[in-house]
């Protein structure tokens, strides 16, 4: 073999590969044509379209994005969002799948911003992905609204300028669950937990225990179970809970695992021994119906869906969503809707102030510490230097209405945002460990 000829080939190959990639990606991204009169705002939407999280979170999130953006563009959202588009400019979207490795997500985030020229990104369900794209968003100076991930670490570990999260973080879910339990069972002596063995499950349980310790120090932890994520089979865990006989069992399970657990524990009568607290139970409520034992405590990561108070915006949102997709919106749909409305509120405010299409920095300035109405609650971007939203939250007790054959939530208790969220100057962990000082619950 002649030395050097390989190199010619390698060079050629590299050039060809690079060329192919540029051409390929350019064609792939050049999906839209004929620009409208006003230059559109290009919005990247990233949510699970495949994989286990697609059904419960990803698709409801995408559906909400689809209907909301359509309505925003048409100016059909009720007041105060009745103006079309973002500051008058129509929204153009590109939807990507969140499934795949973190490296893929970061690469695609860069592609969205640098290759496809997106003006803002709304997305991300997995906390891992949120943590990974946040620094990239800062580096690329790309306005990013995280819509469903729960980890409080995002704004606690570092101060971010370009990243926002209208959806309150997960600490609120656990604290409110604890407060609800203590309110209903003031004499509680012991409780157990069954949570998926990954960050969300571990964090949810840790926060719940910390809140319980502060609220009812005499109650002891009986069993802490951490089945594998997507295990599907919970026979052994249910046996362990049946033998533990704790009055309260906390679970942050969601969809697939949640439904499997409800079915398997139902067949073995776990509800006779324990009352379940499903912090994400709302997502399975309609699909499971009478399978959920009456008396179970149900949360919705906010006061969404059936837990939402009456409002024109909520009624409208439920109607358009149900008309289009045939099912009521789940909390991930609310998360997406409130994220988009937050972005719109900030953008419109900045546009009025600027008198023209606002720059990213102007939108950020408007978004920080913003207060706006979501379909289910007022969101205040009160913590995380004005980048993290807080809202009221509600928990309730499940009851199956046999006469009308539909699930209901009774005994709804609402907790004000300041009652279940740490103050602006404290991290969640520190706040919980200190016994939740400064919580305002009335």
């Amino acid at each position, binding site marked *: 073999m002649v030395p050097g000829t390989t190199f010619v080939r390698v060079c050629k190959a590299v050039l060809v590969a690079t060329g192919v990639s540029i051409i390929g990606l350019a064609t792939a991204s050049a999906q839209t044509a004929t620009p409208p009169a006003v230059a559109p705002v290009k919005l990247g939407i990233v949510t699970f379209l*495949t994989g286990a999280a697609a059904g419960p979170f990803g698709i409801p999130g995408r559906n909400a994005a689809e209907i909301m953006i359509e309505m925003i563009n048409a100016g059909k959202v009720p007041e105060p969002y009745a103006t079309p588009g973002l500051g008058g400019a129509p929204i153009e979207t590109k939807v990507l799948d969140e499934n795949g490795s973190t490296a893929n997500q970061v690469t695609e985030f860069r592609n969205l911003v640098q290759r496809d020229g997106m003006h803002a990104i709304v997305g991300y369900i997995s906390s891992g992905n949120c943590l990974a794209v946040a620094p990239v968003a800062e580096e690329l100076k790309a306005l990013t609204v995280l819509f469903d991930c729960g980890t409080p670490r995002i704004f606690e570990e570092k101060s971010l300028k370009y990243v926002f999260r209208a959806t309150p973080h997960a600490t609120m879910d656990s604290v409110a669950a604890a407060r609800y339990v203590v309110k209903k069972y003031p004499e509680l002596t012991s409780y157990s937990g069954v949570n998926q063995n990954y960050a969300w499950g571990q964090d949810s349980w840790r926060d719940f225990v910390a809140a319980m310790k502060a609220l009812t120090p005499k109650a002891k932890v009986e069993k802490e179970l951490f089945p594998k994520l997507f295990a599907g089979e919970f026979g052994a865990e249910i046996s*362990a809970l049946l033998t533990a006989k704790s009055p309260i069992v906390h679970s942050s399970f969601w969809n697939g695992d949640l439904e499997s657990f409800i079915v*398997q524990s139902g067949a073995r009568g776990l509800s006779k021994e324990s009352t379940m607290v499903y912090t994400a139970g709302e997502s399975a409520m309609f*699909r499971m119906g009478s399978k959920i034992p009456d008396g179970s405590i149900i949360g919705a990561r906010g006061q969404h869906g059936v837990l939402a108070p009456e409002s024109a915006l909520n009624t409208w949102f439920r109607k358009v969503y149900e008309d289009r997709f045939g099912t009521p919106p789940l909390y991930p749909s609310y998360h997406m809707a409130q994220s988009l409305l937050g972005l719109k509120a900030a953008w419109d405010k900045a546009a009025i102030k600027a008198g023209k299409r606002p720059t990213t920095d102007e939108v950020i300035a408007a978004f920080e510490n913003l207060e706006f109405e979501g379909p289910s609650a007022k969101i205040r971007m009160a913590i995380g230097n004005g980048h993290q939203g807080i809202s009221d939250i509600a928990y309730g007790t499940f009851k199956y209405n046999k006469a009308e054959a539909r699930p209901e939530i009774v005994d709804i208790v609402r907790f004000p945002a300041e009652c279940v969220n740490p103050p602006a100057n404290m991290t969640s962990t520190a706040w919980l460990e200190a016994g939740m000082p400064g919580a305002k619950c009335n």
Partner: protein
Amino acid sequence: MITAIAIVTDGLVYAAWLFVVAIGLSLIFGVMKILNVAHGAFYAFGAYISATAIGLYFDRGWPAAGGYVAIGASAIATGLIMGYVLERVFLRRVYGKDEVVVVLVTYALFLILEDVLILIWGAEGKAAYQPYSEAGSIDIGGLAVSLYDIGLVIFAALLAIAAIFAIKKTTFGRLLTAVIYDRETASAFGVDVSRVYTLTFLLGAVLGALGGAITAPKISVSPGLGVEVIVLAFAVVAIGGMGSIEGALLGALIVGLFRACAVHLAPNLELFAIYAVMALVLVFRPHGLFSPALARKI
């Protein structure tokens, strides 16, 4: 005491499930030397089609007992059709190539079929709980145990007995044994190896689909459920010894009981209990517990 009962029953239930899932994989590996990643797809399709069949069946309001027949029938149909198509269209082309290349063909098929699932059934989970809920539960030493789960244990035991009997006593079983131990010689003695391959793959596919079908009533059938199963089944088969029915049985029992112990006694270890057992077994028995002695001739 009640914990001991719980460990044994939970371990057996889990082992039964593992065995049904792993036996098809082990069979295909033993006879064809294919590590079939698409087994996860058989499992997933079995679960989806069974869930659909159960849904249709119970919507008609027919008697509950027939629901169990629907599970079995849908699994067999799924396995036969998928197995036949995959073997004839794809695997046939790569017989005789490196084992690893064949593994990757099945991996590619698995990737494709995962997305096909979503195209057919959407990303929403499918529910088919009736057979599980209808079965009810009984009390064993103070512990409520699902009758469906007990049925699974009995089913797995019958399957194990039938499989061991079939391998040892039937003509097809002997053919399989011949091919497992020495493909070339079996072929030289007039065994139609190609036919044996097709039948084995069909059988393996049916068993994989059956694994999914019997699980469907217990779980929310949702995308991605095949991924977890593959690695679990691999672990069981590696522990037991590739291609051995007895091995798959023992592997399933070991993993099942070990996991149950972990959940009840040391919940934090559950996550890697299976892999630790697998590594440990392989350290002492590099080819699994039941493996034909592989002496190389000089």
